């Protein structure tokens, strides 16, 4: 293309630059116009076009010698009146569309200068159409008409420009190349001030437009297949096809090219064509026609035939036809080079094919579609919706016209409600960027103004929670035919199972399934499911700590939905609402799950989470879904009165971790905050008492309630990086969950309170607030401190003091894990912690290196990570808060 441009003289370049400068100035000035301004201009332009429709049609016919003057006049009217009818109420300036429920507004930005190529077949109508679109969208256009239609197009541009400027459009908004040449087009297509090329023309020109490197709207060639199916209204179909194919002597590229007719109706259809003025060619005539109007070398139509009358073509070929013959119909037996008439023919020659079956008919239509018409137009006449649907799926066409004429149907607005156009996008199949009926929206840069939206949040808890001493008595409210109690050996030993049994209605058959006292494994879960199936349970009572209740949740899931794939359900996700894997909703059976917690920490009796251990892989997976939540929770402190001291400490710190992590979570809300803060206060006050005085009923009750309340908070706000670290570490080194959490906790508080290296996207929060939340906790606990930093430090110190008081080891090293062993485990620990979904709600996104640093801080113990000491850069007032 560079060589072509180089052939331009300096004078010619100056001329072209003048056109661009004029258009650029007009386009720039146009940006100041309002919607009312442009609408005021468009209407008189349309009226001017309508007034001159016949005049321009005559000019076009005189110059191009193609088509029919009446039809060209009609096209000019459609290009003005119908297009106006479509655009008149459309907003194309400023805000053009609003989606208040999504907080999105679309704002129009003009393109600027459009370089527009117009065809010989529809010269003036295309100009009128594009001028109206350009004014409506505040763009300037430089027209480059087909060389054989220059004068009529120039005149159409002049009429439009005069009307537009008279009513306020900027001078120079339309210009038209006089006597364009290929180098002119090449130069303008590559001009830096041209924003868009709109090429309605031959394939070569469209290809040149797309090759220029500029954004372009192109129109591909057509080869419209028509399926005339046996259920169609044949009289309507035949008239429509003749109307369309003879319209402007077939120059519209969407017009019918090959009609595939079902065998049953073939003869009758041809008779109808004949009755209405078509000449049905015999074999010899068809052969002669194909040889004459299609170039045997290229396989494309001969230009001399384009837009000519059927009788003139017959004369050209040497066929003897009646004087008023409208259409030449040529039966063909296939598609391809052996059947020359199976290609595009922009003149009133129509190929027909007799199909023995629907399948054969559709196959031939596919062949025609792919013989030069991909992306353009296809037509079907049928009353059979299934066939219409199949045809629509098979045809690669931007427009599939049903029971109406192809050419006029594709133009839109006459036979259907498609957008009126004179430019058919043909999609990628046709080498175009769009399949649209090109319209005003293709002449705009549409800007999306997206306002911040607040994600919907939730607060979900089990339907019924019974708490305080002897709450287990409420079991009598739950009728059941067959109940399976899932528990562990210790519960049987202590007598808790008997206590529970006493409160189950006597008519219920009760079975006890004892599982090992450890975090659940798949094998254990499946044994439980077998028991549930065997006893046809309609109620499951989980009696135990977090492990037992988690096991029961998963058993219920597999019992109700045996197809559930636990590995798949544990797939990672970022946002619960948008997760890829959905939990099963179809259930083969249903059972009520009642959870009775015998520890005061996990809160599993109310949470939608369950942890499953894979010992072989040395990892835990977390299942999370509200369908896992127990139906009923019983928080009865009688079951925790005999908890050993170590377990009291570990589970109590687990509860504190839940509350602290829920408090700073990106999903924290006023609903969860109230629960989180209350739980923290209760833990700091009552955990030391419950630990030091295990028989203190009040302390036990409060800690049991605290665990449930903290769990309500984190069920809805989720947890954070502390849990991700603890899951990885606990599984790798066999450390109980609560203790693993405790080892990480002070380090995580300090980490989250520091300035994040990476912020976690959190649309529901205004600014980073984790450090402020911790300061609020410090205030709630009365820890003192003047600045946020001091308060956070005091909270860390208070947490450490609490852990000391509970005799919890303060470093991983104290557990007897050597530095070398820990170092060896580190890559895997980091990987597993990063894969853990728990941190997705952490306020600070942990980098892999930061996870490693946190592990090492926990290994070393007391010395807090240096990154946590990052200064607080703002005062409390400077931070926004929920």
């Amino acid at each position: 293309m560079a060589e072509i441009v180089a052939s331009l003289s300096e004078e010619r370049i100056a001329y072209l630059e003048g056109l661009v400068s004029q258009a650029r100035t007009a386009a720039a000035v146009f940006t100041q116009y309002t919607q009312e301004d442009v609408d005021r201009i468009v209407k008189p332009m349309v009226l001017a076009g309508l007034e001159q429709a016949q005049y321009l049609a005559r000019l076009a016919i005189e110059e191009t010698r193609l088509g029919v003057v009446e039809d060209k006049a009609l096209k000019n009217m459609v290009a003005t009146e119908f297009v106006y009818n479509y655009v008149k109420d459309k907003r194309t300036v400023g805000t053009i569309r609003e989606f208040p429920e999504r907080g999105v507004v679309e704002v129009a930005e003009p393109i600027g200068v459009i370089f527009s190529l117009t065809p010989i077949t529809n010269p003036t109508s295309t100009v009128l159409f594009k001028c109206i679109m350009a004014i409506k969208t505040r763009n300037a256009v430089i027209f480059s008409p087909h060389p054989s239609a220059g004068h009529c197009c120039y005149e159409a541009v002049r009429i439009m420009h005069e009307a537009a400027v008279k009513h306020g459009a900027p001078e120079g908004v339309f210009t038209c190349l006089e006597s364009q040449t290929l180098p002119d087009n090449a130069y303008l297509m590559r001009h830096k001030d041209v924003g868009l090329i709109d090429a309605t023309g031959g394939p070569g020109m469209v290809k040149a437009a797309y090759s220029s490197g500029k954004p372009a709207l192109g129109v591909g060639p057509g080869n419209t297949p028509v399926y005339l199916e046996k259920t169609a209204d044949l009289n309507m179909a035949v008239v429509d096809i003749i109307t369309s194919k003879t319209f402007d002597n077939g120059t519209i590229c969407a017009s019918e090219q090959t009609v595939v007719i079902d065998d049953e109706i073939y003869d009758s259809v041809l008779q109808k064509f004949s009755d209405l003025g078509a000449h049905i060619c015999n074999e010899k005539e068809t052969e002669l026609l194909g040889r004459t109007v299609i170039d045997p070398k290229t396989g494309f139509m001969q230009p001399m035939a384009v837009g000519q009358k059927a009788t003139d073509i017959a004369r050209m070929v040497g066929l003897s036809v009646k004087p008023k013959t409208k259409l030449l119909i040529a039966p063909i037996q296939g598609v391809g080079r052996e059947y020359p008439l199976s290609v595009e023919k922009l003149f009133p020659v129509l190929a027909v094919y007799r199909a023995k079956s629907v399948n054969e008919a559709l196959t031939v239509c596919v062949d025609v579609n792919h013989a030069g018409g991909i992306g353009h137009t296809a037509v079907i006449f049928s009353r059979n919706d299934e066939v219409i649907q199949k045809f629509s799926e098979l045809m690669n066409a931007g427009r599939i016209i049903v029971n109406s004429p192809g050419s006029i149907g594709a133009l839109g607005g006459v036979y259907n409600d498609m957008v009126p156009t004179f430019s058919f996008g043909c999609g990628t199949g046709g080498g175009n960027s769009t399949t649209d009926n090109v319209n005003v929206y293709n002449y705009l840069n549409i800007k999306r103004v997206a306002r911040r939206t607040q994600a919907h949040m939730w607060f979900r808890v089990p339907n019924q929670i019974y708490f305080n001493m002897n709450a287990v008595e409420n079991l009598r409210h739950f009728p059941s035919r067959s109940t399976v109690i899932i528990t562990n050996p210790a519960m049987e030993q202590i007598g808790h199972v008997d206590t529970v049994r006493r409160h189950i209605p006597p008519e219920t058959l009760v079975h006890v399934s004892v599982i090992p006292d450890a975090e659940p494994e798949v094998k254990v879960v499946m044994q439980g499911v077998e028991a549930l199936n065997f006893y046809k349970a309609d109620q499951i009572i989980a009696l135990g700590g977090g492990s037992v209740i988690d096991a029961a949740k998963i058993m219920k899931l597999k019992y109700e939905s045996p197809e559930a794939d636990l590995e798949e359900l544990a797939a990672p996700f970022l946002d619960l609402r948008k997760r890829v894997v959905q939990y099963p909703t179809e259930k083969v059976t249903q059972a009520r799950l009642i959870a009775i917690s015998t520890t005061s920490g996990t809160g599993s009796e109310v949470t939608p989470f369950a942890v499953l251990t894979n010992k072989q892989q040395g990892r835990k997976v977390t299942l999370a879904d509200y369908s896992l939540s127990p139906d009923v929770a019983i928080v009865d402190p009688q079951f925790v009165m005999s908890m050993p001291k170590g377990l009291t400490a570990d589970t109590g710190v687990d509860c504190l971790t839940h509350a602290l992590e829920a408090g700073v979570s990106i999903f924290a809300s006023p609903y969860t905050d109230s629960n989180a803060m209350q739980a923290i206060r209760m833990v700091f006050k009552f955990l030391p008492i419950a630990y030091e005085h295990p028989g203190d009923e009040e302390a036990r009750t409060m800690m049991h309630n605290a665990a449930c309340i903290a769990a309500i908070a984190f069920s809805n706000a989720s947890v954070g990086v502390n849990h991700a670290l603890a899951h990885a570490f606990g599984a790798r080194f066999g450390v109980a969950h609560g203790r693993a959490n405790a080892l990480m906790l002070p380090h995580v508080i300090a980490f989250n309170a520091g300035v994040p290296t990476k912020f976690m996207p959190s649309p529901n929060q205004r600014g980073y607030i984790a450090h402020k939340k911790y300061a609020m906790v410090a205030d709630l606990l009365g820890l003192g401190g003047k600045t946020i930093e001091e308060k956070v430090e005091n909270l860390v110190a208070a947490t450490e003091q609490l852990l000391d008081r509970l005799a919890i080891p303060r470093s991983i090293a104290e557990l007897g894990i050597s530095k070398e062993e820990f170092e060896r485990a580190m890559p895997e620990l980091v990987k597993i912690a990063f894969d853990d979904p728990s941190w997705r709600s952490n306020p600070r996104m942990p980098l892999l290196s930061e996870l490693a640093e946190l592990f090492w801080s926990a290994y070393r113990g007391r010395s807090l990570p240096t990154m946590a000491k990052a200064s607080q850069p703002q005062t409390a007032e400077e931070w926004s808060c929920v």
Partner: protein
Amino acid sequence: MTSNGEWLEIDGERVVQGLQAAREALDSAHSDVVLDFSAVRRIDPNALRAMEKLAGLADGKAVKVVLRGVNVDIYKVLKLVKLTPRFSFLA
């Protein structure tokens, strides 16, 4: 339009004439010429061409043309035709 030495107020209804006067003022200007656009709501292609001419003339005479009070719609027009680097702007 009123003239105050090298400070010219451009009448919003007669922008081209105002710019013509500004071109004349350039002849006697030794340093800056300030054109007050506060009263100009919109410019048309003729005004834009006049501004291009003015910028060319100012370049030749090494005189700085300062546009005061240009509304943002007009500023965008100048930006689109790449005229903004050829003027100084005063709020």
